[in-house]
């Protein structure tokens, strides 16, 4: 496989990580705790889309190699993830009388409940969307890139969502209030912002993006009850690399971690791929350690620059 192809794969995987890490970072900064149920929120979105796709999959039309029904399913997945998160917030997190560490521990319980319910409903096996696999795009093959239209769809959808979020944060009233609340909740409250309502919107947006990430992850690989929890730590690594609480940092962190994750196979033959480095140079590490690399980067960032790429707040 060529370097370009690894980069292309990295781009697709990064899109998924970016979507989920934005959500996690939003919740981290406004609800003020590390939400360990975020990964399983992704799973919820993926399964909701899967069920919906079973009903509307035949819906006509085709965009980027995907039936229109898939986009309906995507919307439902996003909506269900958001609703589940809001209900959880109202039922579980809001009545709690504990500090942020207590919330963190509670969110693990919530994650288990999500996953257990999904397992009871759908079993523990792997499922895939019933979409016929496409051939790689012909035009890119001469460059050594094997990429299907589906991959393009994932990247494009993620780009649309990220752009939408950027617009929301920068140019709307809600976005300004969210940024203000994330920055200083008490000050926001005395300025007349209803922080409770902002928190609710944070859950909706954060979980919605996670749901979208889950659907795309399901399209990219497959769907299983553990998919969200397995990727959760990678997402955390992205959030921490970007700087907790910074949405733009989370985007950058998600992009980097996703890329590094997919470029791991290149490490042992680094010398052959890069100029100016001796042929024989390489970091001898197997692809099975792709996630471990992300975790180690995360720890290194925490150690050297706990505020991350974009964060300002130091520990």
């Amino acid at each position, binding site marked *: 496989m060529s370097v370009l192809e690894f980069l292309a794969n990295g781009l697709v995987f990064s899109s998924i990580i970016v979507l989920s890490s934005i959500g996690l970072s939003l919740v981290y900064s406004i609800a003020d*705790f*590390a939400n360990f149920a975020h990964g399983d929120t992704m799973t919820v979105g993926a399964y909701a889309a899967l069920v919906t796709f079973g009903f509307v999959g035949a819906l006509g039309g085709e965009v980027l190699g995907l039936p229109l029904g898939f986009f309906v399913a995507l919307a439902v997945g996003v909506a269900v993830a958001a609703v589940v998160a809001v209900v959880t917030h109202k039922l*579980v997190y809001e*009545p*709690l*009388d*504990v500090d*942020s*560490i*207590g919330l*963190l*521990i*509670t969110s*693990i*319980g*919530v*994650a*288990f*409940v*999500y*996953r*257990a*319910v999904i*397992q*009871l*409903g759908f*079993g*523990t096996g792997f499922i895939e969307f019933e979409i016929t696999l496409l051939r790689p795009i012909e035009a890119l093959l001469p460059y050594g890139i094997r990429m299907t239209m589906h991959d393009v769809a994932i990247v494009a959808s993620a780009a649309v969502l990220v752009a939408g979020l950027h617009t929301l944060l920068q140019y709307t009233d809600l976005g300004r209030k969210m940024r203000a609340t994330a920055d200083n909740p008490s000050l926001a409250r005395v300025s007349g912002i209803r922080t409770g309502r902002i928190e609710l919107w944070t859950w909706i947006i954060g979980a919605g993006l996670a749901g979208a990430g889950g659907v795309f992850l399901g399209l990219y690989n497959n769907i299983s009850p553990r998919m969200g*929890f397995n990727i959760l*730590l990678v997402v*955390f*690594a992205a959030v*921490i690399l970007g700087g907790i609480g910074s949405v733009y940092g989370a985007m950058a962190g998600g992009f980097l971690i996703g890329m590094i994750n997919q470029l791991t196979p290149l490490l042992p033959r680094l010398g052959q791929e890069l100029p100016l480095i001796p042929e024989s140079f390489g970091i001898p590490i*197997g692809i*099975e*350690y792709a*996630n*471990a690399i*992300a*975790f*180690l980067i*995360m*720890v*290194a960032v*925490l*150690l050297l620059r*706990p505020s991350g790429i974009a964060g300002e707040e130091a*520990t």
Partner: protein
Amino acid sequence: MSVAARDRFDGLTRAEQGAVGFVVLLAALLLFGLATGGLAPTYFLYLVGLVGMYVLLSFGLNVQWGYTGLINFSVAAFFGLGAYGTALLTAGNSPLGIEGSRLLGLIPLTVIGLLIAVVLAAVVAVAIGIPTLRLRADYLAIASLGLAEVVRLVFLNQRDWTNGSAGLRGIPGFFQGWPVLETFPQAMPNLRVEALEVSIPGVFSTRILGFTLDAPFWQALLNVAFVLALVGVVFAILRRAHRSPWGRVLRTIRSDEDLAEALGKDTYAFKMQAFVLGSVIMALAGVFYAHLNLFVSPGDLEPINTFYVWIAVILGGSGSNRGAMFGGFVVIAIREGTRFLGELLPGALPAADIPFTDLVVSFPSVVETTYVTVVSNFASTRLLAVGLLIVLVMRFRPEGMLPPQRELIWPRSVAESAGPGETNPRETIEEEATATAHVSDASDEVAPDEVAPDESTGDESTGDDLFDDAPDGTGDDTSDSSDDDTSNDVDAPTDASGDASDEGGERNE
């Protein structure tokens, strides 16, 4: 029940009574199973061993989370390090194993394995602790979970060292190679407990007992003795350590790290000591597990195992070793109980005993399908139970069932302050330091004499006590304050703080 026992039971708080009731009920159920032959004695001892193992793990986590406030999500990693540490040396198919059961014909290999496990866990704990212990609490949670995954991936993928996902088999019992104990199970006679015919004439008749106590049984008994010894030793050490000045510093760090720093304590060093101590205790549990199960695989390092231990500690009451024991008991009840129920319950609901089926047509079918799903997927149901339990505990009783009360205090000071049950406030540790600090500040202004009663309740985690390096310093405090008690009694109603007057009143019961 004798009068003394009755009094003792009445002296407990309601939560304690509940916990005692639960444990007694469960023990009775197990004994019933044992008597009726539903539960083989060897399996019963295996369960006891597992409980002991979870108690050990909970003790370890308690040192880290309960006392020092370190969120360690890598319990499974240290457990696995302990298990692999000894298994790599002793397992039949270990790539790094040593032949024979003794090193140089002298020292049993399992002892070496235990030492290796402990050293391995301590080294890794230091290595993980250096980058993470300076971090904010929630970063520590994420980082430790990530590093635990790294450890698991290493055990899974370094096939030439660890045999990969196939795991290590043929691990000997812990006492292989020991002088007398090695042959103990074989040397013991096979006891046959004859079946008894029990009947109430005309009502029912059944056969109870009727099992053989053979070599596996004695082997299991030996294992239980081993884990009980470990639990006992660790408990004694922790009990002593937690009441010592060292333990008081740890609790201060948990309540307010800045305060501890301000008092000149090197909190990083204290946190590191607690982290390593806790990790070594977890590794001991792993060593026991390897020699109990005789098989270890990377699956034992799955994050879910970490959270089982967390439940045990949170449910029992963070910072309470009694609570940790109770929690370990409950976790095994959940883990093994759901398995047991899954085998016991019929696969489908018995039909036609739901009345009014013709009125609500859809309702029973929903119930039935749900029931069938739940019964046929017990692994998922267990996960659901575990998740709900975490949420419910955090919602309704975040301090746990048996939060630390008298066990943090030297027994002598409890005896002197007398009074049953809730003499001492049911505060969690976080509240203790701040509350006491405030109360003593307030009463300082009102009447300096009244500071003493607060200290006499034995809240040792106040800042003042940090300077008090003599372990039995509180004993002196108490004798002082009990003198003050009489005068305090009169003043109590006018006391500025409700807390102090409450305690004063109750103590004189």
